C-alpha cells in the first residue's frame, strides 16, 4: 500500500492498493477509483448507524480493496494529517474529520456529553458524538482550514470556539462553558458557549469551523 498527499489547498489522499489490500474510508470521500478496485459499504448495526449519523458523518464506512488506485478528498479547503496509533492507543475524531484508516483499527462511537441529557451540546457545534479510533493502524484526519496541534499538560485548560475542534486524545476532557455577561453574549461574537478542554493530551484545532 502506498499513500501520498497531492496538492496543498484542498488536498487529495491517493492510496495505491495491491491485490487484497484494504483501506476503510468515510463514505463519499472517494473522488476517483480504478475500476479494478472493489468497494463495500459497511454499517455497524442500526444503533451504531444512528449514532454515526449524529456525529455528522454518513452512516456507513466504505472499504476499498485493491488492486488499484483510489483518490479521496474532503471537497473543501483543508489539511490532511496522518495519526499513527500504536496498539491500544486511541484518538477521538470530531464531526467531519475522519477521512480514512487502516482496517486494523477498531472503530467506535463515543458520546460527547457527560451525564444523562445532551441538551448543552445542542449548542456545542461539535455534534453529539466522537468517532473513536483505536490502534494499531494509521488514521487520516482531514481538518477544515489549517491545523494547529496543541499539547496540554495535566490539568492545563484551553478554551475553544465551537466547531473548531477536529480531534483529541481521549485523555483530554472537554466540556461546555457558558459565557458570562449579557453584553459578551450578545455583542461578543462568540455566542453562548465555549468549549473548555482540560489536559493531559493533544487537541487538534482547525482554522475554519462548522
Amino acid at each position, binding site marked *: 500500500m502506498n499513500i501520498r498527499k497531492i*496538492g496543498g*489547498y484542498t*488536498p*487529495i489522499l491517493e492510496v495505491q492498493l495491491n491485490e487484497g489490500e484494504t483501506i476503510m474510508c468515510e463514505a463519499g470521500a472517494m473522488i*476517483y477509483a480504478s*475500476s479494478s478496485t472493489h468497494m463495500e459499504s459497511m454499517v455497524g448495526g442500526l444503533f451504531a448507524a444512528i449514532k454515526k449519523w449524529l456525529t455528522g458523518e454518513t452512516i*456507513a464506512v466504505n472499504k476499498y480493496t485493491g488492486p488499484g488506485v483510489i483518490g479521496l478528498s474532503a471537497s473543501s479547503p483543508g489539511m490532511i494529517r496522518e495519526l499513527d496509533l500504536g496498539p491500544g492507543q486511541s484518538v477521538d475524531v470530531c464531526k467531519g474529520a475522519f477521512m480514512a484508516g487502516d482496517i486494523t483499527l477498531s472503530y467506535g462511537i463515543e458520546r460527547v456529553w457527560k451525564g444523562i441529557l445532551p441538551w448543552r451540546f445542542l449548542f456545542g457545534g461539535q455534534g453529539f458524538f466522537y468517532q473513536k479510533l483505536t490502534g494499531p493502524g494509521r488514521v487520516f484526519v482531514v481538518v477544515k482550514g489549517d491545523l494547529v496541534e496543541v499539547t496540554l499538560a495535566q490539568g492545563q485548560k484551553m478554551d475553544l470556539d465551537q466547531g473548531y475542534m477536529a480531534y483529541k486524545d481521549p485523555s483530554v476532557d472537554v466540556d461546555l462553558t457558558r459565557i458570562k455577561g449579557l453584553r459578551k453574549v450578545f455583542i461578543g461574537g462568540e455566542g453562548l458557549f465555549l468549549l473548555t478542554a482540560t489536559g493531559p493530551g493533544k487537541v487538534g484545532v482547525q482554522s475554519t469551523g462548522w
Partner: protein
Amino acid sequence: MEVDLYQGETIVCERGAMLYETPDIHSDAVLGMGFFSRLFTGESAALDKYEGPGTVAIAAGKPGMIKELDLQPGQAIDIAHSGFLAMEPTVQFSISLASHSLIRLIGMASFARDNLIFQNLTGPGKVFMHVHGDYVITRLEQGQTMMIDQGYLVFKDHSVELELVRVHGLENIIIGGEGLFLLQVTGPGYVGIQSMKG
C-alpha cells in the same frame, strides 16, 4: 489571470469571467458550434471575446488554480463546463453533451449537472482552465478504466471515452455516499481530476 493585449489581439473567455479591464478594451460575443444544444441545456450560448489594446483580468470566482494547456494543431480535449476559463482565438470550440443515450442524459441532468456539458476544444492555441481545489492528472492506457465522482472531472483528452455508470449494489447506493451514478472514463489519454466539486 491577467492578459495584456496589443492592438487587434483577442482572447476568448467564458461569459461573466471578466474581473476588470482597461477602458480601451473592446468586447464582443462569439457563438460556437453546437449553439442549439447549448440552448437546450439552459446554459449561455455565447462566449465573450476581448480585443486590445489594453488589459483584461479573468477569474472563475471560486477557489482553485488556473492551468494552462498548450494545444498542438489538431489536438483535441474536452473540458467540463465549469472548468473552462479562457483560450486563444485560434482554438476551435464546440459544445457537446457527455452522453448520447437519452436515458443516461436524463440521469446525468438530475445527478451530474456539471459533467453533463463539455467544451470540445481543438488546437492550435493555449487553453486556460480553472481547477477547483487541487489537481491530479492521470494517463490511462488503451482500455484502462477509472471511476470518477460526478463534478470532479475537469478535462479529458478527446480520445478518452466517457460513460455514466450506475453504482452497483443497493446497499452501496443508499449508504455508499457516492449517489446513483459515477463517471467511467476509458483510455487512452489524459484525465484531469479536481479535489472540489465544480
